[in-house]
């Protein structure tokens, strides 16, 4: 079934692409992609490439992470407050392989993401017994276990203790432009996959479980299996993001990669953009990273999380759909006006 669906998609791709670009959302997305591709060639300035461009790279990494959270929570309805698990595990595996086993970064990122999928499986299974808010706390508890295990002094021989792993070789490339381009590719591929998954028949099943699990059961769907798939798939992309993040920073440590704050960032970015929109995650992530950057530049670094917590509260309280939908609607009005529709 899945194979047919994919084959059909591939066959119809050229026509699909043409009509897609003509739609408002398609056009806008294409515009954003082209801008992102063009961006690194705008300037050779060291400050631009090594500082400004790297903020974009970071935002793209977190876009993937937030989108993976949206896939699990927004699309499949499984509230995760422990997404840092997948992010952190992949980062650690990746860093370990590069630093201790001399793996090339490509392969390390790949294996890291696979490791995250494996954790998605182990965590998904016991968590299946939990629903809604319990799942939120269960996953939070899971991530805290891992955080504490990694912080534990007595395990530092195996898990590297609170120092983590740090090595100049943990990077995709020492040229920030190359790094940017590679992460951009990861982002584009991840987003296309996640969006297509959420639009597919498989995605419809995930959404049906989110909307009413009992009813999905009664429709003959093996909900358990699909929920585990959702966990694994989401973990895959969270893992890609986590592994990329490890190479971005060049180091991993427990709080930086496993901390509850990391999970919070995913939640914040995705909710900011609007749950279930996937694309909103990117908007949320860019907004987040650049606001953070401006606050740091302005010397108000310690207020970053406080401000974000406030924003989350305000957005959740007053705007059910996050900020993406309202913004898009405004732009669409403008677009229609320009085209005289």
């Amino acid at each position, binding site marked *: 079934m899945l194979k047919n669906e994919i084959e059909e998609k591939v066959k119809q791709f050229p026509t699909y692409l043409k009509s897609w670009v003509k739609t408002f959302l398609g056009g806008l997305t294409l515009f954003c992609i082209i801008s992102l591709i063009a961006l690194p060639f705008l300037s050779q300035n060291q400050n631009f490439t090594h500082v400004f461009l790297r903020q974009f790279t970071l935002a793209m990494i977190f876009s993937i992470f937030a989108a993976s959270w949206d896939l699990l*929570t927004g699309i499949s309805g499984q*509230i995760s*407050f422990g997404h840092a698990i997948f992010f952190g595990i992949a980062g650690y595996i990746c860093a370990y392989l590069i630093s201790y086993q001399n793996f090339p970064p490509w392969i390390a990122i790949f294996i890291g993401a696979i490791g995250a999928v494996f954790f998605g499986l182990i965590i998904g299974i*016991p*968590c299946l*017994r*939990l*629903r*809604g*808010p*319990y799942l*939120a*706390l*269960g996953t*939070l*508890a*899971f991530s*805290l*276990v891992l955080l*504490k*295990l990694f912080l*534990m*002094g*007595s395990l530092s021989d195996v898990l590297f203790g609170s120092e983590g792993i740090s090595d100049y070789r943990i990077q995709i490339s020492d040229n920030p432009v190359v790094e940017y381009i590679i992460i951009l590719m990861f982002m584009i591929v991840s987003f296309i996959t996640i969006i297509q998954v959420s639009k597919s028949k498989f995605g419809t099943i995930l959404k049906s479980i989110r909307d009413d699990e009992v009813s999905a059961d009664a429709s003959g769907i093996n909900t358990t299996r699909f929920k585990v798939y959702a966990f694994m798939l989401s973990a895959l992309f969270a893992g890609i993001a986590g592994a990329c993040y490890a190479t971005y920073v060049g180091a991993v440590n427990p709080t930086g990669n496993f901390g*509850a704050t990391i999970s*919070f960032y995913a*939640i914040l970015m995705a*909710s900011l953009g609007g*749950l279930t929109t996937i694309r909103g995650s990117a908007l949320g992530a860019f907004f987040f990273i650049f606001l953070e950057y401006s606050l740091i530049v302005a010397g108000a670094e*310690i*207020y970053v*999380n*406080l401000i974000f*917590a*406030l924003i*989350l*509260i305000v957005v*959740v*309280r007053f705007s059910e759909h996050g900020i993406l939908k309202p913004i898009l609607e405004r732009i669409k009005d403008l677009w229609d006006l320009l085209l005289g529709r």
Partner: protein
Amino acid sequence: MIEDIMNMLFNGILNGAVLALISLGYSLVYGVGGIMNMAHGAYFMLTGYLLLWGMRIFPGMLFLTVIFVIIIITIIGGLTYILLIKPLQDTHVGVVLITFGLAFLIEQWILIVSGTTSASINDYVLFPGTTEFLGYSMFNQYIFFIIASLVIVSLFALFISKSKLGKSIRAVSQDREAAVLMGINANRVLLYTVMISAFLAAIAASLYLPGAALTGPGMGWTYLTSSFAVIILGGMGSLVGSVVGGYIMGFVTSFTSIFLPNGPSWAHVVPLIVILIVLIIRPRGLFGKKKLR
């Protein structure tokens, strides 16, 4: 060895007393309104810091400060319900997200004011000194706290079964729609429930923390997950379960931290491991009747 055993027993009861108080309110709120208040641990943590600051501002007025702080936290609980939970009640995700945001906000605020380092509030105990028992010396404050916790739990049980509000709380938790038909204002009952839960957390914190320490603003999460573990163990929404579960968890943690190698660091992981085991073996907990939903 005897020393160790005494130590384990005493700490077990002590941990149990803290967890019972925190989990009781947490479980109550869930049982009555299906509300998972992620800020519950933050109330506990905030109480500790308010006490610390309060005592710096009003030295020598310990008793009043404690009462004042408890009142503030109770009000914060009420505001959480009115401003954040009530408007989002229909969406579970919404309530979880927004109370999570609140907990994070409180944590970050304290972080800004106070920094990450742990602080001692040892000077702010209501009952200084120690008492010897079978050659084991116990902190008076803790003895008082353990007794107070037992008294509060009993009063609470009495309140739930006898008082008018207690009866409304039970009615709403059993069948909200029927309760509303009977003329009970479910929203008001929920408001009181959240306030009671914050009140219990504040009492636990203001009596227990002065003997322990403020280990940093992140400690709220630890208590949140511990009480989550307790209510999973005891059974969701079961008040007996939260008390018994609290004490069991208390003993398990104190046993781990005293008798296992590297105990103290493993003790943090214990509640979480208990959650996982219970979820796998008996998902409805020890006293729970309903399945998890």
